[in-house]
């Protein structure tokens, strides 16, 4: 099996599993209990907080543990909106290709009277900082731009956007779920006020993540109850999950340089191999993208059947076709970069793992070529494209 869907989720690292089991089996105390057994769990929690903070150059008290990336996105955006509301600032800037955790939260705020500006992401899948600057006005309370896109992997000019927001005194949040552990992130150097991350995208367990919020930013609670997480997130802390997340994060960051060199080389090898398929296109800038991300559109075929046949060949991947998105429309990300429906249905995302070999990469290239050719052999769309009845778009 060649698992090439690491943007969906990753395999837990052995070290993270070991840490998790230890805290489930042995160190199961409640960090809020005053006796030593509880305080031991509290120590583990705070140690994890320090480890996570260090990775992004934050202070431990700026890290809030959550149930994952979606919760962190919700809390960051709703907090900024609340702060904006108090100042009469009801304008938020974001992009058209954010994760739904961001987009749906913004839709909710729109219904509450907020004005939402979604910036164009251009065909290369990149935001232009000048357009962020031009969109900011006196009513803007938040700019939220993802660090790296989850489908096409493009890495946004976060530092430049952060600098603009800092200068304009507007809060800046980034959904860094796909970036943390895979590219270096420094919240100070990049002027990031709030950042969301998810553990299972970097070999940690599911159901845990964190929100970084710069000191001084008053957060709004999503969950009311006890005084955990400085009163900003009630509920007994998921100590095994949090400790395992910190372990996984430290581990992947210590190997980042090596991983990047290895995965990037395979990424480019596969891109080169797939570009040879006629009437195909790489989605997103070829260089400013995550080391692990490959995203193609192939004309004349549909993504779900491509995925099912790749699965039969032992390759797990993902697609932005309507059939896989569970709606009538294909991926909003592909539409945002200007792919028309007909083409967006035939998309394939491969997100490589660090353990992929060159042999695996070549097998992926061979398999995708075979499956695309097979599906085209009985596609009425491909027939019409080939005969010239309809025009090629790619």
């Amino acid at each position, binding site marked *: 099996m060649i698992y090439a869907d690491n943007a969906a989720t990753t395999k837990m690292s052995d070290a993270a599993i070991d840490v998790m089991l230890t805290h489930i089996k042995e160190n199961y105390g409640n960090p809020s209990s005053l006796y030593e057994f509880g305080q031991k769990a509290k120590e583990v929690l705070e140690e994890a907080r320090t480890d996570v903070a260090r990775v992004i150059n934050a202070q431990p008290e700026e890290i809030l543990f959550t149930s994952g990336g979606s919760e962190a996105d919700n809390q960051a955006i709703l907090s900024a909106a609340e702060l904006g509301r108090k100042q009469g600032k009801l304008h938020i800037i974001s992009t058209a290709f954010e994760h739904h955790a961001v987009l749906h939260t913004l839709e909710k705020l729109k219904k509450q009277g907020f004005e939402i500006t979604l910036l164009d992401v251009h065909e290369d899948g990149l935001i232009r900082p000048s357009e962020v600057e031009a969109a900011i006005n006196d009513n803007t309370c938040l700019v939220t731009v993802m660090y790296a896109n989850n489908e096409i992997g493009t890495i946004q000019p976060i530092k430049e956007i952060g600098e603009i927001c800092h200068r304009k005194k507007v809060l800046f949040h980034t959904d860094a779920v796909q970036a943390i552990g895979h590219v270096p992130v420094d919240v100070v150097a990049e002027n990031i006020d709030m950042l969301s991350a998810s553990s299972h995208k970097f070999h940690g367990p599911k159901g845990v993540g964190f929100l970084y919020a710069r000191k001084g930013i008053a957060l709004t609670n999503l969950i009311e109850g006890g005084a955990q997480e400085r009163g900003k997130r009630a509920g007994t802390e998921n100590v095994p999950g949090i400790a395992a997340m910190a372990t996984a994060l430290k581990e992947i960051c210590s190997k980042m340089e090596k991983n990047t060199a290895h995965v990037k080389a395979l990424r480019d090898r596969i891109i080169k191999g797939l570009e040879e398929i006629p009437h195909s296109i790489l989605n997103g800038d070829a260089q400013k993208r995550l080391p692990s991300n490959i995203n193609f559109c192939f004309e*004349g*075929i*549909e*993504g*779900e*059947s491509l995925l*099912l046949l790749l699965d*039969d060949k032992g390759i797990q991947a993902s697609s932005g*076709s*309507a*059939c896989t998105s*569970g709606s*009538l429309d*294909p991926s909003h990300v592909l539409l945002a970069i200007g792919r*028309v*429906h*007909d083409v967006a*249905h035939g998309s394939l995302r491969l997100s490589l793992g660090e353990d992929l070999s060159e042999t695996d990469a070549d097998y992926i290239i061979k398999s995708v070529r075979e499956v695309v050719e097979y599906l085209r052999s*009985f*596609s*009425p*769309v*491909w*027939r019409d494209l080939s005969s010239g009845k309809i025009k090629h778009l790619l």
Partner: protein
Amino acid sequence: MALYSEKVMDHFRNPRNLGVLEDANAIGEVGNAKCGDIMKMYLKIEDDMVKDVKFETFGCGSAIASSSMATEMIKGKPLSEVEKLTNKAVTEALDGLPTHKIHCSVLAEQAIKSALEDYRSKK
């Protein structure tokens, strides 16, 4: 549980009657690329019977499986029977489809109806 039944996967992996029928006298095409599904049915009708049938499909797994199953269900059958084929019958023959995929069986029914219309319009 798998996304699709064994039957759906079987017809998807080994589609029956796949391809173009050069001497077809009834052709039906339904769906559109914008929605991600197009089915094309080629029928050879003689003596009010479907002597042969082939299909081409652009679409997801259940679209391919639905077309494949539908061609099997009409091959060698009299037109009186063929025109009564419903999407429900196709779905049942496939041991069911996920709710959001039922429209694939509807397309299969429509593709056959469209081919029959084509045949009658040429008569």
